């Protein structure tokens, strides 16, 4: 599959502070690519350079065949953007906001109205189309902003924390729509600090910390890095201490509420040791299950390693 975004040695300094440091990656046409990282990792700065509103200190970004620095208008014409915390014009109606976006993208009036109406229906805002945006809830506003980003039939959609701070219903709807638009052929580039979201939506994920990309791969492959250190979640009838569970091969034990999470490479041996311990101490096992590593485990492991180094 061809690359639709190519980022080469991108760097951004703010008065000596390196917000983004030598970042290189590609995004393939038609994929959902997630940039995952904690707050302050440099995700928003990266996305702002990708969409051409921040000038990189160094490096180049290519969207399709266009160099973002040299041809920003051509690049912006084929992309839709949902900036973090962005708002629509609250004194204008939802329809007027969409039509204004249409005008800014040079869409012919008739086509613009048709597209606006279709998006309003898709985003469940049609009934409120003539209401001023200031009367909208946060979820409705975010849906409208996403609709505005899709007015130009964008080839690439840049979403900066698209569901941040939204209620469950709006989050679900927006995720559904992101999947739908991706199915229709739109390439999605999203930044998020929400691991679950990245896991749910993304074909590939780049983990960013302190301005650097520290891992980049498919979520499942990233998880397999952690497979070596699987964990077992176990609960006993009677209370016990973490130290009691440090059998041979156990690397770490974490108490989580009334359960224990036991980490180690040889899971089968550990399970047998747990059963043996249960019999010996006459402490019945209430539940026992293998835990697959989550993207969160990878994220914590990688970001911690990065910070320590």
């Amino acid at each position, binding site marked *: 599959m061809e690359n639709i975004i190519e980022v080469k040695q991108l760097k951004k300094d703010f008065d000596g502070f390196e917000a983004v440091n030598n970042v290189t990656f590609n995004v393939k046409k038609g994929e959902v690519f997630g940039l995952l990282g904690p707050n302050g990792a440099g995700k928003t700065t990266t996305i*702002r350079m990708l969409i051409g*509103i*921040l000038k990189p200190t160094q490096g180049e970004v290519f969207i399709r065949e266009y160099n973002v620095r040299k041809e920003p208008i*051509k690049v*912006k014409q084929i992309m839709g953007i949902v900036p973090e915390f962005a708002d629509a*014009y609250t004194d*204008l109606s939802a329809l007027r906001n969409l039509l204004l976006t249409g*005008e800014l993208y*040079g869409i012919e009036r008739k086509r613009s109205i048709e597209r606006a109406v279709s998006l309003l229906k898709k985003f469940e805002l049609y009934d409120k189309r003539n209401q001023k945006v200031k009367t909208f809830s946060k979820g409705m506003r975010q849906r409208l902003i996403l609709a*505005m980003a899709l007015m130009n039939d964008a080839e690439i959609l840049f979403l900066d924390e698209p569901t941040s701070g939204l209620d469950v219903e709006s989050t679900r709807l927006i995720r559904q729509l992101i999947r739908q638009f991706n199915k229709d052929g739109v390439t999605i580039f999203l930044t998020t600090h929400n691991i679950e979201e990245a896991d749910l939506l993304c074909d590939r994920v780049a983990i960013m910390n302190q301005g650097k990309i520290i891992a980049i791969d498919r979520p499942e492959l990233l998880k397999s890095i952690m497979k070596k250190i699987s964990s077992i979640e176990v609960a006993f009838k009677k209370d016990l201490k973490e130290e009691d569970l440090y059998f041979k091969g156990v690397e770490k034990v974490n108490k989580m509420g009334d359960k224990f999470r036991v980490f180690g490479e040889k899971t089968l041996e550990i399970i047998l040791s747990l059963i043996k311990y249960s019999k010996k101490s006459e402490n019945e096992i209430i539940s026992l299950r293998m835990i697959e590593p989550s993207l969160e485990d990878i994220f914590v492991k990688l970001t911690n390693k990065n910070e320590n180094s």
Partner: protein
Amino acid sequence: MKILEQLKRSFAITKKDLSIYYLKGSVVIQGLLIPGFVFISFIFRREMPIDSIIPGLLGMALFFTVSAITPVITPWETRMRTFERLVSSPIYLWTIILGDIVASVLFGLFVVSFIMLAGILLLGVEIISFPLILGTIVAAFCFSSLGTLISAPPADKPSDIMLIASLIKFPLIFISGVFVPITEMGKLKILSFFSPLTYYTDLARYSMQGVSLFSPFVNILILFVFTILLFLFSLIWHHKSLDKRF
């Protein structure tokens, strides 16, 4: 072709500005009342012929109305997080600035036309002349460009920019021959040449009294040069401050 397309998009910003910021009862009333009240307070009990009052009033009304809203649009939109969306659209920074300028020009011309109409109908002053109409349009662009220049620092609090605007606008009123003709300003006359308002007031005075420091053509030409310079400075500064705006 590309420029024409950008001009069309710029006009979309003009329409947006007019409906959000200008076409509100309170703004229109303020646009008419503030220059009027300020002016009346200065000429009160000073015996001045009506045809020497109107040019000053015209100059002040145009200057105040045109440069009232433009300085706060960008900081306000930065604060409301709509500016980031705007610069993410396929438009140049000049497209946005020009859109803001044209909106304030249209608003200023609307307000000034009231004053001209009042001068003609109520006071019988002969105002309308081609140089004055052309000069009023050029001056409106000039004062509005000054407004966008004032909005260039990367502030997101409109109150900060309003303070800067007041510190620039009020001194200009006093050195531009609005209340006292430039010929009577003595040594301060030199300062007046640095204010674009001087040339518009001089033009208006010529249109009503037939006397002026410069010819109408020179006044319009200087206003035009000021417009270009202010627009360019504004554009350069906005470009420089864009990184710090987010």
